[in-house]
């Protein structure tokens, strides 16, 4: 990269730049920046400065870790709201072909995208010459088992537990990202000209009776549409709300789970699970973070001690060396 080739240099052998006016202009500015003398903080990572940091990390991380660990272990107690999940394993929701197989415009209620879905939805784009709504592999493979929970009392019938369908999807998804196509009150009318996904039993406008939970804004659908990060995943299915402070949400007793089995997983060697869990401020049960915090804190503390020893020993040896001078 050639630079600073000014015309003055062209004159070969000419007398070097006349003194006086030109000299003044060519003289570089005496600014701190140009002279690389900007005031600066010059920290150095030495054993002395790092030692306290190691100890501090140790002292902070270990209690946090213990706190997390305890919280995580306490989650089993069925107090407060209980969350019901279904889990699938060996299901690759994060496969590239699968992840991209959706049309966010269609799901956002765009009427042109409704009738002409994106090419990404192939081969789940059209069926029998009609556009599929919602199109794509994700929507097509929506989990459609029905889970019901019953408390088996001492004597009589099993009592069904009230499962809340709403509030399981992200608020922004339900209220902004997913929109039904525009039109009148009749949802079926709005989806006119489209057909249901091949694997679905019912069309999209018949997912739920509640108009606020039907069509694209059906929360089960929205939850499914958020593709999981890993092949073994769980998704929120229902909420079991606590009725009063006095009784536990799910009192001790025998329960039965009724599964309406629609969803095939054997083909891909998959497994289904149902998980009931309470949630603390830090989510579900997960010992990893707590253990990791305790481990890192301890290691850091240990390293601090080791460094201290090295530092001390080293200082001594250098002291003796100095005395011999």
């Amino acid at each position, binding site marked *: *990269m050639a*630079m*600073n080739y000014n015309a003055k*240099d062209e004159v070969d*052998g000419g007398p070097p730049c006349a003194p006086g006016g030109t000299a003044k202009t*060519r003289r*570089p500015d005496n600014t701190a920046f*140009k*002279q690389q003398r*900007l*005031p600066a903080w*010059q920290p150095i*990572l*030495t054993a*002395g400065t*790092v030692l306290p940091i190691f100890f501090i990390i140790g002292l902070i991380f270990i209690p946090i870790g213990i706190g997390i660990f305890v919280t995580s272990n306490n989650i089993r107690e069925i107090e407060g709201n209980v969350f019901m999940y279904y*889990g699938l394993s060996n299901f*690759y929701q*994060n*496969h*590239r*072909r*699968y*992840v991209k197989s959706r049309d*966010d*415009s269609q799901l*956002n209620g765009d009427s042109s995208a409704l009738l002409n879905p994106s090419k*990404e939805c192939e081969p789940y784009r059209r069926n029998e010459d009609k556009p599929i709504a919602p199109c794509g*592999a994700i929507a097509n*493979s929506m989990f459609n088992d029905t889970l019901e929970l019953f408390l088996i009392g001492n004597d009589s019938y099993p009592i069904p537990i009230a499962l809340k369908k709403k509030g*399981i999807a*992200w608020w922004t*998804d339900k209220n902004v*990202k997913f929109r039904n196509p525009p039109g009148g009150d009749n949802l079926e009318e709005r989806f006119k000209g489209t057909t249901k996904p091949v694997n679905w039993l019912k069309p999209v406008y018949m997912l739920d009776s509640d108009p606020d939970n039907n069509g694209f804004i059906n929360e089960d659908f929205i939850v499914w549409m958020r*593709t999981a*990060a*890993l*092949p*073994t*995943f769980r998704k*929120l299915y229902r909420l079991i709300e606590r009725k009063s402070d006095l009784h536990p949400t799910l009192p001790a007793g025998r329960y039965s789970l009724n599964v309406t089995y629609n969803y095939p997983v054997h083909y*891909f060697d998959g497994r289904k699970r149902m998980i009931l869990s309470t949630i603390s401020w*830090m*989510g*579900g049960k*997960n010992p*990893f*973070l707590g253990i*990791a*915090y305790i481990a*890192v804190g301890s290691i*850091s503390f240990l*390293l601090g001690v080791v*460094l201290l020893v090295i530092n001390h020993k*080293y200082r001594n040896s*250098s002291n003796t*060396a*100095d005395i*011999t*001078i």
Partner: protein
Amino acid sequence: MGHATSPPPAWMENPAIKPLGSENLLLRGATLKNTEKIFGVAIYTGMETKMALNYQSKSQKRSAVEKSMNAFLIVYLCILISKALINTVLKYVWQSEPFRDEPWYNQKTESERQRNLFLKAFTDFLAFMVLFNYIIPVSMYVTVEMQKFLGSYFITWDEDMFDEETGEGPLVNTSDLNEELGQVEYIFTDKTGTLTENNMEFKECCIEGHVYVPHVICNGQVLPESSGIDMIDSSPSVNGREREELFFRALCLCHTVQVKDDDSVDGPRKSPDGGKSCVYISSSPDEVALVEGVQRLGFTYLRLKDNYMEILNRENHIERFELLEILSFDSVRRRMSVIVKSATGEIYLFCKGADSSIFPRVIEGKVDQIRARVERNAVEGLRTLCVAYKRLIQEEYEGICKLLQAAKVALQDREKKLAEAYEQIEKDLTLLGATAVEDRLQEKAADTIEALQKAGIKVWVLTGDKMETAAATCYACKLFRRNTQLLELTTKRIEEQSLHDVLFELSKTVLRHSGTLTRDNLSGLSADMQDYGLIIDGAALSLIMKPREDGSSGNYRELFLEICRSCSAVLCCRMAPLQKAQIVKLIKFSKEHPITLAIGDGANDVSMILEAHVGIGVIGKEGRQAARNSDYAIPKFKHLKKMLLVHGHFYYIRISELVQYFFYKNVCFIFPQFLYQFFCGFSQQTLYDTAYLTLYNISFTSLPILLYSLMEQHVGIDVLKRDPTLYRDVAKNALLRWRVFIYWTLLGLFDALVFFFGAYFVFENTTVTSNGQIFGNWTFGTLVFTVMVFTVTLKLALDTHYWTWINHFVIWGSLLFYVVFSLLWGGVIWPFLNYQRMYYVFIQMLSSGPAWLAIVLLVTVSLLPDVLKKVLCRQLWPTATERVQQNGCAQPRDRDSEFTPLASLQSPGYQSTCPSAAWYSSHSQQVTLTAWKEKVSTEPPPTLGGSRHHCSSIPSHSCPRSRVGMLV
């Protein structure tokens, strides 16, 4: 470009052959005077124009850093390809079960199904290549270029390298080699004009053994009564007087000086002789000095008019000589001649040149006396020239004319033929005398050389001067010290013994000490040992370089290199310009491939400037050729110190961190993607959103490293200048060795593993929100990405030693920008996108406690090993730089006890007996501070107020390593 001839008709009638030479050349911008028109021949057109030739001859110089960069790149390319291959193979292994390849929920389209298997595999391979291609840091090249371009401004802006006298600052002609300035192992320097001022001053002349010294000069102004002559010897005889005048006339006539009659010019060379003021101009400052010197001795050269040279003799009579021929100077012949015809019709040939080229051609004159004087002067470092003459009779002259004419009009080998003609003409001369011109050392030249040698750089002086002159200069500028044992490899010695014997003898001398030398090198005290200086001259060099007939061609060269390696300083005298380049090339391609730097000021240095890894031109008196062809130009030799020790060191530190950091951050970036393939069925699913993929290198992590690579100062400028030994810490591309590179790569891999599996275990099969809702794959990627951006930026923050407000702004600003961008990117449904996958992902992530905890944890874990490594290395195996960094912090605290009674114990003569005392001045100073810290009261001893300079000579006998760490 053309040649002015006589009017056409005469030329038509009388076809005479006229030579066209360089003197007929009209350069761009010439104006036509005194004639209506001229005939011209266009020459040097097309590819032969100066521009085109320069373009060709300037070969692409690439720095060592760039070379290692490319090597690293190849490694990464291999990693990229193997990653893609591994994934492709694994994909097909994994897919061999049909339910995995195409489960019911994820069917392929018909066209996908029908695609040929090999085509599919190939497209998969390419898709993996695209996915992982970010591991090749393309943006690194952009950043490196920007860093080099912007960084080079710091050189041009440097006030310390600005020369007040000439009003010149440093020039940067290429910014590609900034970091190479920090890697220099050999410096080849020209002497005249580079080490010395090239400000010639006529000292004395010796005519037939009588020495004449013009009166002293005061501040460059000759005193009015200076026209007298100091006779050192007894007064000459009548014959002698004739010779004396002839000598002066010879000096007045035998030159190519031009006189500039201009009253308005207030140049420095105003003629002192009353009336008319005139300025002498010449391409060679020696000539000007000689003409001026002679003027002070009574003979004034007035002008060249109509081919007549006019001189004013002592009696104030004007003598006119017709200038018949000029046999111009060249560096091979090392002499020039003029043939003039005096008013009385006598024809003289005056010849002036180096003693070695004059003495063999002399048949008469007091050769021995003059030779003795010349040698004495040379030892004192004066530049000597010998003057001889020959009287020609008319026939001889005509013969010469013919000879010259034939040579000049030759179309082929003109130069060679001219040289032969000159050879024939300039012989059988009568020696008249010799002149001595002093060329003072440049300011701080010795200091600079000393510092450079301490920095572990070998300094070679390459000069065309004779050995004694050059050796004297070398002593003066401390290249050779008093205790340096000089080894001579000169023509004179080779004449006595065979080259073979001399070389073997020298190598034996040198190698005898090498055993002890290597041992001492470990403790860095090699300077204490005998150090050698080698003197070699051009003729001996060409013998060494000449390939042997018996096939053992490289043998002498190797031996010679072996000797050179053991010498702390080498002086090459009597060098032709091409030989200078040859020497540079020899060292450049020797087996260690050291980085060479050539510095010179004249056109004769251009070849070596172009040859060396880094060429530096001194903006000097001999035109700007060197400065133009150089990579960097500086006004004075002393500026080299700051150029290398400060700027070079900084640039190297900066760019090496830049390179390593770029590879590191891209490993961090891409390796999680690689790992993710194992969890997504090798489907090329990206972990991060497209915007993150694109912006990671462009905006999230680009500015901090760019600004780091512009601003970083791991130690202060003053420290670097004060302690040149720090330069050794970065020698031999120390920060870009494979070991370091592997460390950075492994660190990147470790960090990537931490990011990915940290996020994996946090996400694995659990809820991480307080409302029970579930995160998807984009949140997972965003978590990994967030941890990564923070880790990578904080890693740089840990490496930054110089936090100006700009660094703060850029580092914290980048992180802030990342957060703001993510909030914005996920906060809006972007109508131009056909996907909304990032909508509220980042914000949702931030609403989760475990995500915060995970970010803190993972960033800490990622940074911990690096911090630990740094601290341990610093503690257990500190480099000199690291010691200085720590000591630099401690200094202000100890300032009060800086001058301790220990300094006064110092005997004044100590330094000369033990030169290494000053060598480790900074360390030894530190010793005193630490050892006396507790004993000395905070009050400075009153008697030692002004003894600051003493502390540089405090003796220290112990190993420097043991002294450090006290101030930790």
